[in-house]
C-alpha cells in the first residue's frame, strides 16, 4: 500500500524503536477466578486476556476424537477494542485466526492424554493495536501452562514485516497499515519448529529469509518473558 505516510523519521521508526526492537510487553498469570488457567497480556497498545478451560468432554459428541483431545481456540475482538466500533460476534477474520491458532497449539499440547476431550482456549482482545493474533497466541501459551495442560513446549508468536524496503520486527499500527509486508509466525521455542505462519504483502526470497530470522529471534525474546512470568508466579507460592 503506497502512501505518503513516512514510517521512518531520521532513521528511526515512528515510535522511536530500533528495527529489531519489540514493543513493551507485560504478562500477568492467573488473573481469572473461574478459568483453569488464564493470562492478561499487554503488548504495545494491545490488551489481551486469555482463559483456558479443560480438558473437558468435547460437546457435541460428533466433534469428539476417540484418540486425542481437540483444541478449540476462539479469538474474539471486543466491540470497543478498535477505533471504529466492531459489531459483536465472530466475523470471518476472527474465525480464520481462531483456526490457525488452534492448529498451532495442537502441535505442542500432549493431546493423546485426553481422548474425546476438548481444551477450550478463549482469547479476548480488549484493545487492539496491530499484531493481535501474535499477542493472543502468546497469551494462550501462558494460560495453557497456568492450567496445567501437559505440553511439549509453550508456544509463542511474533511478527516481522517490511516498511519502506526495510525489514523490521514487531510492526506497530501505522507500520501495519502502510507497510509493504507482514509476516506473523508462531514457534515452539525449544525446537524452532514453525507452528503458525501467514504472510501478506510483497517480499523477495532474500527479504523473506531475513524477516523469518528476525521474527524467530523476536519469538525467543518474547518466550523469555513468558517463562519469567510463569516461574515468578509459581515461585511466589513457595515463599510463605
Amino acid at each position, binding site marked *: 500500500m503506497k502512501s505518503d505516510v513516512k514510517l521512518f523519521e531520521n532513521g528511526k521508526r515512528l515510535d522511536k524503536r530500533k528495527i529489531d526492537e519489540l514493543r513493551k510487553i507485560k504478562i500477568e498469570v492467573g488473573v481469572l477466578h473461574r478459568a483453569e488457567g488464564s493470562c492478561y497480556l499487554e503488548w504495545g497498545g494491545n490488551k489481551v486476556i486469555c482463559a483456558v478451560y479443560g480438558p473437558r468432554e468435547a460437546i457435541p459428541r460428533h466433534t469428539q476424537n476417540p484418540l486425542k483431545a481437540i483444541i478449540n481456540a476462539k479469538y474474539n475482538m471486543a466491540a470497543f477494542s478498535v477505533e471504529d466500533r466492531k459489531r459483536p460476534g465472530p466475523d470471518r477474520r476472527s474465525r480464520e485466526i481462531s483456526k490457525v491458532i488452534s492448529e498451532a497449539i495442537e502441535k505442542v499440547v*500432549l493431546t493423546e492424554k*485426553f481422548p474425546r476431550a476438548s481444551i477450550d482456549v478463549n482469547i479476548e482482545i480488549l484493545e487492539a493495536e496491530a499484531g493481535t493474533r501474535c499477542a493472543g497466541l502468546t497469551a494462550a501459551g501462558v494460560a495453557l501452562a497456568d492450567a496445567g495442560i501437559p505440553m511439549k513446549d509453550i508456544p509463542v508468536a511474533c511478527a516481522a514485516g517490511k516498511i519502506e524496503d526495510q525489514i523490521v520486527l514487531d510492526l506497530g499500527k501505522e507500520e501495519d497499515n502502510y507497510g509493504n509486508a507482514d509476516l506473523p509466525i508462531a514457534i515452539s521455542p525449544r525446537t524452532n519448529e514453525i507452528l503458525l505462519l501467514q504472510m501478506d504483502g510483497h517480499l523477495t526470497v532474500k527479504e523473506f529469509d531475513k524477516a523469518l530470522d528476525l521474527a524467530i529471534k523476536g519469538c525467543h525474546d518474547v518466550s523469555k518473558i513468558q517463562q519469567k512470568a510463569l516461574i515468578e508466579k509459581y515461585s511466589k507460592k513457595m515463599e510463605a
Partner: protein
Amino acid sequence: MSEEKREVVIPSQLLGKTKDKKAGKGTFVENGNIYAETIGVLNINSNQINVTALKGIYDPVKGDFVIGIVDEPMSSSWLVDINAPYPALLHVNEVPWDVEFNETEKYLNKGDCIMAKVLQVDLEKKLNITLKDRNLYKIKNGHLIEISPSKVPRIIGKKGSMISIIKKYTKCRIFVGQNGRIWVDGDKEGVEKVIDTIKIIDKESLSYGLTNKIEKMLKEVQ
C-alpha cells in the same frame, strides 16, 4: 533422606538425560533428553526425575477413591460428575441396592453426593465407578470442600500424617477424594476449623514444615 529440591519448572524445561536417570511422572522424553511437561515442582532422587504438577485437572486412575455428584439418573445407570474431564458411569450392578429398571431416581438423584471408587478407565477414558465397597455410600449430611486435585497429596500428607492431625484436633470425620473433593462432618466449630485449615494448606502447599505448623496452629485453638 534426601531433602527434595523445591524448584519450579515449566513445560519444555530440560531436566536431565535418560542415560543418567529414568523419566518419571510429569515428564516426556525426546532424543534421550528428559523434559518437564507441566508446570510443577522438580523432584530428583537417586534414579528418577519427576515433576509434581502444581495445577491440572483430575486424571482418574483405577482404584482411586472419589467424591462424585450425581448429574443424571438414566434407566439403569447414573452419570456422575467426578471432577474429571469426563462424566463417570455408575451402573445399577455397582450399587448396594436392588434397583429396578427405570427406578434409578428412587435411589440417587441429581445433586446427590456419593463416595465412590473408580472401577475402570478404558483406552478412550470411558469411566466406570462403583459404590460396592464397605466404605462407600451416599452422603447425607456434612460439608463439601473443593480444592485443586494436585493438592490432595498435601492434605493427606506423608503416610497420612497431615490428615490424621486434622482429624485428631477437630474431631471431625473427613473423607478426602483423589479428585479434589473433601467431605467433612462434625460439630460446627470443628467443621469451620477443618475448612480454615484446608484453605491454609491449599495456599501454602509448597512451604517447608507445613505439617508442624498446622499441628501447632490446631493445638493452640483447642
